């Protein structure tokens, strides 16, 4: 369904954000995208959402190359909680419905109620955490095949985070589509994600089932992450570690 074929992305010709990433994501479920600051997670999502062009290689969704002018209709990605129209939440939901016919308005209202959102409040009057809730709600309600969530629980209190993870699991854990969640809250997401992608220095260093990856050496996800991205003495030799889920064969288009 999603394929990255030797994708490289450079900014201003010299800063390499992604370096020859080759990855195939076929199974539906919740994917956890981990990486240290500056590893390339956001660039990965931007490429997948068709926001930015790649410098070389190709990114495909369902066999079709991602076009930045006509970005994939089946990918939802709300990048930041800061840059939104100062509308009432109810109006933002209606607007989302207007640009995306598949938008699940009833689910959006359900999430709003579950998170205690006042639909008549204007966006700019909300706290940062509440703004993140609204953008996460809009993304989850988009009903698209691929949902990209970049730090979706930033500013959430622990109880609200748990509620979000359960909602994510209910929505995307059962074959609705692919949800890729980028977060630094590694040990929390471990309980809710099916698969794991770790990016370091613009390259993928791990792509595997969460359980298989952690049970191999009896590590927590945090320990595994630190071992793979911690630095020179962490035991990671820079090679891409293939999990059983990656077949390596070419994807027919």
């Amino acid at each position, binding site marked *: 369904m999603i394929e990255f074929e030797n994708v490289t992305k450079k900014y201003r010709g010299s800063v390499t954000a992604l370096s020859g990433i080759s990855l195939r994501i076929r199974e539906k479920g919740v994917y956890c995208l981990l990486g240290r600051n500056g590893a390339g997670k956001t660039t990965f999502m931007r490429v997948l959402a068709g926001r930015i062009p790649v410098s070389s290689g190709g990114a495909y969704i369902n066999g079709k190359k991602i076009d*930045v002018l006509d*970005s994939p*209709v089946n990918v939802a990605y709300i*990048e930041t909680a800061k*840059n939104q*129209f100062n509308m009432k939440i109810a109006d933002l939901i209606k607007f989302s419905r*207007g640009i995306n016919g598949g938008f699940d308005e009833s689910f959006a209202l359900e999430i709003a109620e579950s998170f205690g959102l006042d639909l008549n409040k204007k966006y700019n009057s909300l706290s940062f955490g509440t703004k993140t809730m609204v953008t996460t709600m809009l993304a989850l309600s988009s009903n698209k095949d691929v949902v990209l969530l970049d730090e979706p629980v930033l500013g959430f209190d622990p109880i609200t985070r748990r509620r979000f993870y359960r909602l994510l699991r209910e929505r995307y854990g059962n074959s609705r589509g692919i949800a890729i969640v980028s977060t630094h809250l590694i040990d929390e997401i471990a309980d809710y994600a099916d698969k794991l992608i770790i990016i370091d220095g613009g390259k993928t260093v791990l792509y595997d089932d969460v359980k298989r990856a952690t049970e191999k050496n009896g590590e927590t996800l945090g320990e595994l992450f630190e071992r793979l991205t911690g630095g020179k003495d962490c035991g990671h030799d820079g090679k891409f570690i293939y999990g059983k889920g990656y077949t390596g064969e070419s994807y027919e288009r």
Partner: protein
Amino acid sequence: MKDNNGRTKNSKFRQIRTVAAVNFKRATPVAYVLSGLCAIAMIADIVIDKVTGKTGNSSLAPYCMLYLVCVLSPVLISCVNYGKFINIGVNKKTFFYACALNYAVYAAVISFIATVERFTADTLLGNGYNVYGIIDAFGWDGNFAAAYFSQFGFLLLVQAVVHTLAFMQNNAYGWVADILIVVIISVFTPVRALRQAEIFFFNLVLFLPNVWARTGICVLLSAAVYATNLIYLKKRR
């Protein structure tokens, strides 16, 4: 319309219309208020002069203030609204077409209001009081249709140019475009042969005797200038 998974798909036009509607309501109200206030101030000035019996005065026609909408809206739409649309998931092409729809509507509506004012209120004021506007300055006052379509083409071109320049400002292209414009004005104008080229251009878009040819040229030029946005849209986040 349903997609392969049975989910409702909005038609492309519905998406474009939704985005255009938000453009009309968001950011551009600043332009509406500003031009409205200026127009009111002008009208008040004219009314006071008439009431106090002043004759021989001249004034800028209030409809000229509506043109502020055509100058401010493209700036606000491309600089303020664009990032918000893309962030919420609007397709870049949808944004491109929606803005074109916005500018066509602005040109159509403002040209209509301006022409109606020129041929009614401004004419009624007459009798020793002169109200001048762009329609008079450029000689588009032959009849209603000539004034309307000339303005429509001109306003469309203005908006296309302003949008394109504003949209590329945070990139090297923007700087190059700005420098090019300054060079053209400062180098072409004093040099006679080059000045002729400038005169030719302005004759084409403003003073061509045939209103249909003039309007057609403006519309084509607007489309060509606006289409260049597609190049930059690819790179802009």
